[in-house]
Structure formats: C-alpha cells, structure tokens
C-alpha cells in the first residue's frame, strides 16, 4: 500500500463519515417524526434531504461567539477534541476485508477504547471551560457516567476477544464466519450496546445534556459551528458505535449474495435505527440510578460473561 493511496483512503473515509453523520441528523428527525405522528423536516430538497445542508450553512454563518467569562483556549479545544477522537476511532473499523484505514492493527479494539476514553475530555472540558453552572453539572455528570461505562464497555468486549483470539477487528470479523458473535456473546452484546449509548450520551442516557434538567448541559454556552462540532461528533459517535456493534457482534461485512459493503452498511444502518427508536421510546433514568445500574448490574454481568466464556473456551477448545 503506497502512502498516497493510504491518504486517499483516509480522506474518502473521513468524507463518508462526516456526510453520514450529517445525513443522520436528517434520518433521525424523519424517523422520530414518523414514530411521533408528525412530519419531521420535509421542506428543504426532496423529502427534506437537504435539511442537513441547510442546518450546516446556518451553523457556519452564525456568529462565532465565545462567552467573555469562558476559558477561551479550552473552550475552543473541547469540541475539536470530541470530533477528533470520534473520527480517529473510525480508523480501525473494517468496512470490508480490504477497506479500512488500520483494521489490521493488532490492538484495534484497544485503540477504539482509547479513543472513546479520550472523547470524555471533550464533554468534561466543554462543561468546565464554559464557566456556567449548568454546563459544569453536565460536565461532572459526563465524567462520572462515561468513565464508569468505559469500564463496562471494555469488559463487555473481552468475551469477543477471547473467542476470536485477537484484538484486531479484521480477525474478529473473520472469526464470525460460522456464527455471529451475537449468539455466543449475547450478554456482551447487550452490555456493549448499553455502554455504547452511555458513551455517546444519547437518550435515555443523555444525562450530561439532560435538557429537561440542565438546559443543554455541557454545551449550554456553545453556539454556531462549535456547537455544530459537538452535534456532529455525537452523531458520528452513534455511527461509530453502530459500526463497532456490526463488526464485533453482527459479522461485519460477512453475508450472502450481496456485496460486503452493502452488508456492512445495512447492518450498521439498522443498528442506528435501533438507537433512534430507543431515543423515541424511553424516559431518562436519574443520575444515581444510572450509576447504580452500571456498577451493580452491568459490572457483574460483564464479569460473569468473561468467566463463563473463558471456562467454555477451556472446556471445548481442542488445545485445552
């Protein structure tokens, strides 16, 4: 692989990612509208598809305002950090066997976890730098919630890694030739899904924002494109988690008849729709209930899953 081709691949992937995230805002609003007996955005372009473009233009032309009481440097850094970590996370996602920026990285999963754990900074620093009490409360909620759920996210993946004997995402997809990991690793799948929602702080786990409680939480003081970056980073985060679920538990690009790319996109798309459906359906738990649920339910379940998977491998594997 030449350097030029590698760069081209990165650029194409990034462009695809960003437009997917922007388009997702439209998809989400239309789906929510459909589920809530209303139209959703349907004016800009055919079926409202250009809504994301209109929103982007609006955000770009808004005054780029930084509150005088904010910590200027950190205030600017926070959304950028959020965006960067999410986009870097995509580097290890293998869309197909041949198409991924760093899918063969032998610590692929760890790289993904590292990027999500750095993503916390964006929310926490955004909340701190705004110098606003609602934002600060949002930031503190984010720190506690995301650091905790990172633990479960990491643990929930261990079973998968044990089954695939590798941290590399391409190897993990390859190992699902006979059976998708969602079957033997169902507990892992559920815990990863929940942790994924908490990591992307989406309803029902959107406590750092919690508009009914904290106004807009950590991004209360943000407007214009800096807000837009938080916004896009959130949607890119959904795409990232959905891609990870596809890769780790739903057999990635594997599937009959259709080309691998289509399979990957189909599975990811359906997972994203499920995320949106959750948002439409569920109320938000209270902060302490969320933490309690994490440490008292998810953690034991994860540990149990790891122990059982390990025992099963030892029992059934030919090498012992």
């Amino acid at each position, binding site marked *: 692989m030449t350097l030029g081709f590698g760069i081209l691949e990165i650029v194409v992937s990034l462009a695809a990612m960003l437009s997917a995230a922007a388009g997702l805002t439209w998809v989400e609003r239309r789906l929510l509208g459909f589920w809530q007996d209303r139209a959703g955005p349907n004016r800009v372009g055919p079926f409202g598809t250009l809504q994301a473009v209109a929103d982007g233009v609006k955000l770009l032309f808004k005054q780029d305002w930084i509150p005088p009481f904010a910590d200027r440097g950190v205030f600017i850094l926070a959304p950028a950090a959020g965006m960067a970590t999410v986009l870097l996370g995509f580097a290890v996602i293998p869309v197909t066997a041949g198409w991924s920026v760093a899918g063969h990285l032998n610590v692929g999963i760890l790289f993904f976890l590292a990027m999500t*754990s750095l993503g916390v900074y964006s929310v926490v620093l955004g909340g*701190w730098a705004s110098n606003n009490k609602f934002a600060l409360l949002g930031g503190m909620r984010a720190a506690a919630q995301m*650091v905790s759920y990172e633990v479960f996210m990491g643990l929930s993946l261990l079973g998968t890694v044990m089954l695939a004997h590798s941290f590399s995402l391409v190897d993990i997809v390859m190992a699902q030739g006979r059976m998708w990991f969602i079957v033997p690793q169902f507990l892992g799948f559920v815990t990863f899904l929940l942790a994924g929602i908490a990591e992307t702080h989406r309803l029902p786990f959107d406590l750092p924002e919690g508009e009914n409680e904290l106004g807009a939480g950590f991004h209360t003081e943000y407007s214009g494109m800096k807000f837009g970056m938080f916004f896009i980073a959130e949607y890119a985060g959904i795409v990232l988690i959905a891609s990870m679920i596809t890769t780790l538990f739903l057999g990635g690009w594997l599937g009959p008849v259709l080309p691998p790319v289509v399979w990957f996109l189909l599975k990811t798309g359906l997972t994203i729709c499920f995320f949106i459906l959750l948002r439409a359906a569920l109320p938000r738990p209270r902060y302490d209930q969320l933490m309690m649920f994490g440490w008292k339910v998810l953690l034991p379940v994860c540990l149990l899953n790891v122990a059982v998977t390990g025992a099963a491998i030892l029992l059934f594997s030919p090498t012992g």
Partner: protein
Amino acid sequence: MNALFTLAAIVAVISTTMVVTRTVAVHALLYLVVSLLAVATVFFTLGAAFAAALEVIIYAGAIMILFVFVVMMLNLDRDDADRENTWLTPRVWAGPALLSAVLAGELLYAGIAGHGTIVAAREVGPVQVGLALFGPYLLAVELASLLLLAGLISAYHLGRDSGRGG
C-alpha cells in the same frame, strides 16, 4: 520511525515542562494528558503497541479524567491562579531544574555516544504481554491485584457517607 520517536519525545518533554509552569490547574492537567499521549506514541514507535494503548486508556482516559473531575469540583478561581504564580519563584524551581538538566545531559550523552541504542527490538503485542504477565510474573500480578483490592475497599470505606459530619 526514528523521526516519529524523536518528535514524540520532544512533545513529551515540552508538554511536561508546561505542566509544571501552568498556573491554571486544568491547563496543567491538559498538558499532562498531552505528555502521556506523547509517551504512548513513544511506546508505539518502539513496537509496544499494547502498552501504548493501555497508557492512553488508563492514564489519559481514566486517571487524568478523575483529576479533571476533582479540579472541576474544587471551584478554583483567579485568586488561586495568582497564588500559584507567587509560588513559582526561581528559588523554588532552580534546584529541580538543575538536577533535571544533569539527567538530560546524561541521556543526551548516552544517545550520542551510542551506549543505549534506540531501536525497535521486536514488536510486543498483546499475546506476548499476556504470556509474560501470567507466566514469569504471575506472582507480581497477583500481588498487585491484592493491593488494588485493598485500595478499593479502603476507598469505599473512606468515601462512605459518614464523612458528612466532618
């Protein structure tokens, strides 16, 4: 590879200096995070990808976040930053700086003279790390886990609501 290593090392040194000289606690912490990321990159260029990933996840992603969390709760303001400023007099930093300079010189000498060669000996992946930890170092791992458990229990004990009264 060598160029990447050198770059990362320089970033690490600069950001660590910044950590010491910042008066706003969060800024210092941010530089510390950058420093840790740079060290992770150093590990990566040396072939220890696993260690690099753990460095980011555990140090940068978890421990430093907790530091930031605490600083956020402390509600430090302009006065605190000014007080920090007054603490940073030459008399305070001259000693450590001198000693560090000696160490840096030593390192430089070793590098130039070629006593300690910087080469990626071999790639250390997760498998090797796992085998090492649960092979020759099993006892150390178990001891460390016991220590962590003790830490966990005592943290729980200290953090219980009894602290409300004072």
